[in-house]
C-alpha cells in the first residue's frame, strides 16, 4: 500500500466506522464450525474472535463502539490494544472499508 491515507495509524481516527468491502460475504460455516470471509476466488477461515469483531463491522459503529460492545462480553480482554491492530490488518488486505 503506497497511499498514506491507508496507513495503519488511521484506525485511531475516531470517525472510522469499519464496514466489510462490498465484494465480501461473512458467514458461519456449519460444516467447519467457523466463520468465513467469502470473496472472489478466495475463502478465509476466521478465528472465533476475528469473526466476532468483523460481525460488528457493519458501518454503524466506530472502532471505540466495537471495543465497547465486545467489552460487555469480554471484560478482561486487552481489547483496546488488540482490536485496532486486527482491524488495521484486515483493512490492509482490502477487506474492510
Amino acid at each position: 500500500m503506497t497511499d498514506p491515507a491507508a496507513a495503519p495509524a488511521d484506525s485511531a481516527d475516531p470517525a472510522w466506522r469499519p464496514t466489510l468491502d462490498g465484494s465480501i460475504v461473512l458467514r458461519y460455516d456449519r460444516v467447519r464450525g467457523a466463520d468465513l470471509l467469502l470473496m472472489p476466488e478466495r475463502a478465509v477461515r476466521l478465528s472465533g474472535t476475528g469473526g466476532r469483531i468483523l460481525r460488528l463491522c457493519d458501518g454503524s459503529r466506530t472502532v471505540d463502539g466495537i471495543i465497547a460492545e465486545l467489552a460487555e462480553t469480554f471484560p478482561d480482554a486487552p481489547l483496546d490494544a488488540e482490536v485496532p491492530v486486527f482491524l488495521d490488518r484486515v483493512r490492509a488486505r482490502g477487506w474492510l472499508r
Partner: protein
Amino acid sequence: MTTTDVPPPWGLLAEVTHACPLHCPYCSNPLELVRPSAELSAAEWTRVFGEAAELGIVQAHVSGGEPLLRADLAEIVAAAHRAGVYTQLVTSGVGLTAGRLAELLAAGLNSVQLSLQDARRPGSDLIAGRVSYAEKEEAAGVIRDAGAPFGLNVVLHRRNLDNLREIIEVGARWGADRIELANTQFYGWALRNRAALLPTRDQLDAAKAVVAAWRAERDAPELVWVLPDYYEGVPKPCMGGWGARTITVGPDGTALPCPAAYAIPDLDAPNVRERPLGWIWTESPAFNAYRGTEWMSEPCRSCPRREVDFGGCRCQAHALTGDAARTDPACALSPDHDLVRAATEAPRADEFVYRRPGRSVSG
C-alpha cells in the same frame, strides 16, 4: 486415506452448458462437448447446490461454455444463493446486458469474471473465433456500472504474451478489480493447439518483468499470475490435490475432480443424476483414485515435495504419457520430462483448431 477422513470440499465448478458463442482454441471444456439436450435442468442444479452446501462447499463458479445461454440461469444462481454458496459468473460477456446482470444480481450473484482474449480488437476476435471484442467492452461497462466485483481473465499464450502490458492497461481502463493472467494449461483443446499456443521462454521472461513492473507501480488492479508449468521444471499442485478442494459438475451431471479429467477414460466418472454429491466426494472410486499419496510411484513416492505438488497434474500425466498415475512430465524429476522439453523446442504453428462441437475427431 480412508473415506472417513476426507476433508470437505470448498468449491464447485458448475459447467451449466458447453454451448458458447466463442471458439477459443484453448477452451477448458472437453473435446467431446455435451449437447444442450443432455443438460441438467434448473431443478437438478438446485438439488446439486443443496447437496454441495451440505457437504461444505461455500463457493461456486457458474461457468460454461457461456452460462448466459441458459435462459434459466437466474434460477440456478438463486438456488446457489439460497444454499449459502458465494457465486461468481464466468462469462465471455456476449449477452451480458444491464438487464441480464441486474436479474442475476437480484438472484444473489456475488461477482463476475469476464474473459478477454487480447488487448486489441483484431487479436481478441481472432483468438475467440468470433467478432466479440466490442461486446466484451460493453459488458465491462455493465459490470462496472452495476458496482459488481469484477475480475478479468486473460488466457496467455504465444500470440498475446507480447501485448501483456497493454492487456493489463485495458483491464485497468475497463475497471477490473483483479486480472487473472492465466498462462495456457495444455490439456484438451489447448493440447490440440499446443504448437500454435506454446510461448517461448523469452516471451515468458519478458511477461514476468511486465507483471513485476506493474505491481511495483500500482496496487490495482490486482494481478494473479498462473504459472506456465512447461518452463518451470516443477509441476503445479493441480486443483490443490486430486479430490482435495473442488468438484467440477459438467452440463450433463458428470462429476469430476477437475474440468480436464473428462479426458481420463478409465476413470468411471460418477454422475449427480445417479448419486448424491456426498457419496461422489467421499466414496466414489473416481475421486479416490489419486487422492493423497498412496497411489504414487517413484520419483513422487519418496519426494519431499509430494505433499506440496501432489505429483503435479494427473490429466497432464495421462495426456502426455497415457498413464494418469505417472509423475507429471512438467516436473524436471519425471522420467518423461523430455516430452515437455521437446515440445518447448519444437517448431511452432500458426493455424488454430477452433473449439466447435463435433470437431474433436476430425480435428
